[in-house]
């Protein structure tokens, strides 16, 4: 997928799939694509930049709510709402990044956890603006140039979002910035000695990935055409973390594998354990941390390496 042709082909294949699915499958497919998008950006923040944050899903929610509020309460036309939404996501990400990146390790995790909970509290108490505990519903995406973008065409939008996110992250990773993020994660003192401004690097990584989550949220707003507080709670933040770790932290492929596996697993396991798939996720998480810290991708790599050594 490293060339434009590769990307175009992938986009075509993923979009074609959208036209072949029934309405229930479409819903699953769309959400899968969104989870993969989130996992990719979270993987950059957590796995590559090494920041343990629980705010990713919160920015997803901020993006979603911002979009709905800007369109239907502030009454902006669609193009303006999109621009304002993106601007808001970036701005808020920056505002949170500046104090947050001063915290290390667990303190960052705690502060972002508190931030995530605070978001839910604000949503619940937001009265008419946020729709309070019930949230906002019964809206739909305004027509674009007089056409309704719906069904498989909206799925194509999500495909483009996913590929755009993947391409951006991939470029960032394969550059001095990606190396700087890894250096800061591995050894901030040595990174400083190499001329890397550790604080600026952390802020950039946090802002970019959180803004990406926000933009994904803006797209999400029209998937179920409803936004309410429970969707953006801590449970999903934990799930995102589990996806990245189980798949293989620090690797794009790992994020994709983890997201697909953990998102689709409940559908498979439902007949066996009802809603308690979180139990399986928790066990997977513990198992991966204990036995295969490189995640599923690590297992795959090991397997491929063995095959190569066989004459």
């Amino acid at each position, binding site marked *: 997928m490293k060339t434009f042709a590769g990307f175009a082909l992938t986009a075509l294949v993923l979009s074609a799939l959208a036209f072949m699915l029934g309405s229930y499958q479409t819903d699953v497919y769309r959400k899968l694509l969104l989870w993969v998008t989130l996992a990719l950006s979270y993987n950059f923040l957590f796995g590559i930049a090494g920041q343990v944050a629980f705010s990713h899903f919160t920015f997803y929610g901020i993006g979603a709510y911002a979009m709905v509020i800007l369109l239907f309460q502030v009454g902006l036309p669609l193009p303006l709402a999109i621009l304002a939404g993106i601007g808001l996501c970036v701005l808020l990400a920056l505002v949170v990044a500046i104090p947050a990146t001063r915290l290390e390790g667990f303190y960052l995790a705690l502060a972002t956890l508190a931030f995530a909970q*605070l978001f839910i509290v604000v949503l619940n108490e937001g009265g008419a603006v946020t729709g309070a505990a019930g949230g906002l519903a019964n809206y739909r995406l305004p027509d674009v140039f007089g056409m309704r973008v719906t069904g498989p065409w909206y799925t194509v939008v999500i495909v483009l979002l996913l590929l755009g996110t993947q391409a951006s992250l991939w470029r960032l990773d394969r550059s001095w910035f990606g190396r700087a993020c890894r250096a800061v994660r591995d050894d901030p003192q040595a990174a400083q000695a190499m001329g890397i401004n550790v604080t600026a690097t952390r802020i950039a990584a946090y802002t970019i990935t959180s803004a990406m989550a926000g933009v994904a949220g803006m797209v999400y707003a029209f998937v179920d055409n409803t936004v309410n507080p429970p969707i953006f709670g801590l449970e999903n933040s934990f799930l995102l973390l589990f996806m990245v770790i189980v798949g293989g932290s620090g690797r794009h492929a790992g994020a994709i594998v983890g997201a697909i596996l953990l998102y689709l697993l409940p559908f498979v396991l439902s007949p066996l354990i009802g809603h308690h798939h979180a139990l399986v*996720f928790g066990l997977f998480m513990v198992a991966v*941390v204990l036995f295969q810290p490189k995640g599923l991708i690590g297992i795959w790599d090991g397997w491929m390496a063995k095959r190569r050594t066989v004459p």
Partner: protein
Amino acid sequence: MRDFVELIVGAMASGCIYALVALSYLLITRPTGVINFAVGEWSMLAAFGGFLALSRFELPYPVGMAIVIGAMVLVGWLTERMAVRPLVERGAPALAPILALLGMLVVFREIVSVGMGPDPQPVPPMFGYGRLELGLVAGSYQSFTIIVVTALVFGSAWYFFERTLAGRSFEAVAIDRRAAALMGINLRRVTALAFAASAAVAGMAGLLVSPNVSAHYMMGLPLAIQGFTALVIGGVGRVEGALLGGLILAVAEQFTVRYAPIPPGLAQGVPLVLLILFLLLRPTGLLRARESRA
């Protein structure tokens, strides 16, 4: 006036619960540097244990309590043995045990959810539902029980750390792990003891708080957050800090709910805002930690 005092008593009781959870974190963090996300779930487990032992099987309180705390000691020891020790001995990065414990948080919660269902279950208080009124001071029996028990636990913890050899070895490990090991302190035993004690304290908190709020499989995380907030406010390094932080947090919370002109739902945000403020402005908390090398 009596109203005000009763509010104070209630706040102190809440504060004690937070303080116990904070102590629970401290007992593990000091000697091992591991942050145990799962303390809230430990409290939750104990609460359900209390439900089973005291409501379902109707055992006398002291017996039920002993069984539950005993079980928690076992749970703490097992958690360390299975999820933490292999990582520490392998030299895994510091983040690894924390992530493993996060996974355990979800596992504990789901096990309870599967086993006991999603409905809240009642847990009886130690001395029944009566009220005590001594002059100006008034409050429920449970509030006073919580305060007294917490005082006992903290008193023992203080005594343990200040006056006993085992307690000193905890401090030694906290200050410098490698040096402590070289001095012959058995790191494994200290770690196992730390986890067991932490679980027992968290369990006590769960047993004490559940008569008021019922045992519910989702009660763990809010408690864990409040406990950690108390720890950060009071000072991450000291036993007294846990108590101070808990009380300050509870008083701030209750007084905001009671007297501040903001909707009660928003008052839930108070501990969260306090946590964020302290983490940013004064991460070492109000009480300075004792001499500890970075």
